């Protein structure tokens, strides 16, 4: 018995971790090392390389030259062509965010008041867009609204309601509608989570004090789910601004956004450094907006909800 104990614990007092682990302090870091390594290899390193790439030079015939210049950044930040594209990206993201908030918040409220089995059924309906491939879903929109042959346009024209087909393909409106459709679940789920934290009696309490249904929603429910709406908005905004497939199919190459622009620079123009500058700029802008917005939310509501 004592021999075994000695062999396992030759020096230190009982209860100490073996010295091979470097003591208690290091163990957590060592245990998370594999995950950290993976994260570094697949996220940090490529990201760092992209940032470096954005400072390299490129020419039609010379290709990429590993030098340090600010040409790409100057071009992206000053050329009105790129500015317009970034402006369009964030304008679309903003409209998508507003649209999902306007539809998603009431949707979540209704969903929250539903009884089973309806709640489950409609939750599935809301999550539906996420379950369908982005390409199939966007092509569905194209089939409904695309040009003269689009189903909805054809029906409306034949009914005499419109004289020309509703423009949808290659329009910002089309992109906003299609993106709002697919990003709606994120807003609904964020607001729903906030609604579930609501005291079930709180609406009754307001009603008993003489508040009408609309007043209850505006004065009691809305302020309490506002943090949910705002966190949903941050997610939706970030996803909308960095979306690729939907803008690529609906906007095509006529109406480019930041993500499709970076793609084109990488794969069509082959100007990787410029594409890298666009991608990095998009990332930085999104991080600044998301962090700034969530700081704002936290500060605004910390005192109330904690």
């Amino acid at each position, binding site marked *: 018995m004592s021999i075994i104990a000695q062999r396992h614990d030759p020096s230190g007092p009982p209860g100490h971790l073996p010295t091979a682990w470097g003591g208690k302090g290091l163990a957590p870091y060592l245990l998370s090392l594999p995950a950290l390594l993976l994260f570094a290899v697949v996220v940090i390193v490529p990201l760092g390389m992209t940032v470096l790439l954005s400072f390299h030079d490129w020419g039609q015939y010379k290709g990429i030259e590993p030098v340090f210049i600010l040409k790409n950044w100057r071009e992206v930040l000053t050329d009105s062509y790129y500015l317009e594209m970034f402006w369009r990206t964030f304008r679309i993201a903003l409209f998508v965010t507003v649209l999902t908030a306007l539809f998603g918040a009431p949707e979540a409220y209704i969903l929250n008041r539903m009884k089973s089995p309806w709640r489950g059924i409609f939750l599935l309906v809301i999550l539906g867009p996420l379950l369908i491939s982005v390409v199939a879903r966007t092509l569905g929109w194209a089939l409904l609204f695309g040009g003269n042959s689009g189903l909805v346009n054809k029906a409306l024209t034949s009914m005499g309601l419109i004289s020309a087909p509703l423009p949808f393909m290659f329009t910002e409106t089309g992109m906003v509608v299609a993106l709002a459709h697919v990003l709606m679940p994120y807003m609904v789920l964020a607001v729903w989570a906030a609604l579930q934290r609501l*005291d079930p*009696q*709180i609406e*009754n*309490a*307001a*009603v*008993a*004090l*003489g*508040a*009408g249904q609309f*007043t209850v929603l505006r*004065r*009691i429910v809305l*302020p*309490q789910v506002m943090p949910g709406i705002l966190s949903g908005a941050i997610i939706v905004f970030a996803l909308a601004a960095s979306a690729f497939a939907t803008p690529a199919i609906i906007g095509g190459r006529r109406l480019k956004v930041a993500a499709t622009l970076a793609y084109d620079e990488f794969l069509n123009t082959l100007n990787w450094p410029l594409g890298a500058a666009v991608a990095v700029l998009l990332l930085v802008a999104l991080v600044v907006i998301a962090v700034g917005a969530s700081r704002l939310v936290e500060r605004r509501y910390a*005192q*109330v*909800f*904690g």
Partner: protein
Amino acid sequence: MSFLILEKLTKRFGTHLAVDGLSLGVEKGEFVSLLGPSGCGKTTTLQMIAGFVEPTGGAIMLEGRDLLAVKPARRGLGIVFQSYALFPHMTVAENVAFGLEMQGVAAAERTRRVGETLDLVGLAAFSGRFPRQLSGGQQQRVALARALVIRPQILLLDEPLSNLDAKLREEMQIELRQIQRTVGTTTILVTHDQAEAMALSDRIVVMNQGRAEQVGPPHEAYERPATPFVASFLGKTNILDGVTVRPEKISFAPGGLAGRVRTRIFQGNHWLYQVETTGGLVTVIRQNSGEVMPTEGDAVHLAWPSSLPHASRGEVSAQRTEGS
């Protein structure tokens, strides 16, 4: 005619009869408790008065008017919820002012009445705080102030003290009673706590399975329970030869029902005995007057006044039932 009248009030959920033809008259300024175990229909009754639950049948009249024809938002009742249901995004003062705002009371008048009511519940210093910065007891007072500030015709209390710890609950009982006396609002309290109901109410409605088993002053319901259910629900009781006898009414005597002390528990101001008799276990409570008392294993005789009012329901053997 009573101030508030419930007439054959009935609520059916599917096949379950939650409230079964409840009739009750409440006088102006009275404090009435609906007391019963969970699922007895007391909360459903309260919610029907408040208007959150639509009755299946029956009528509710307030000062002769049909209350069921009035929308919940127009009934003007003050309600304190078990969870308090305070508005977390509003300060204490804003919470209390909300009902006045809904009534269209002018700002100056509103401020005055909010201050007055917060004074009444002793929270004047906390008007700028948010609910989550308050203790449970303070939140409870805010809920009470919010309900009282609109000068409701009736104050409805739904298990208002059940989230407080025992000591605070007792303090709040006394305070609640004083506040109700001060403002004189007709009050209906829903509770499962018989001590709370007895401490606060002018009258108790003991409910069981959707029906009122007994309606009367606390003392009367305790001393002359109408049914064995009431006897067992309001405190501890023994049923001896079909007669309910309260444990504190039984004394050790030279003669009487013979038995042996099985357990003896000291509870400070009194002793709690369980005595094995030929008729079963009998609970006895004796004041701690400093005298030497029988201990476990002692042979004793039990006696009780024979003239005690009783409720006979044909029980033949002695049995002990313990109330909650």
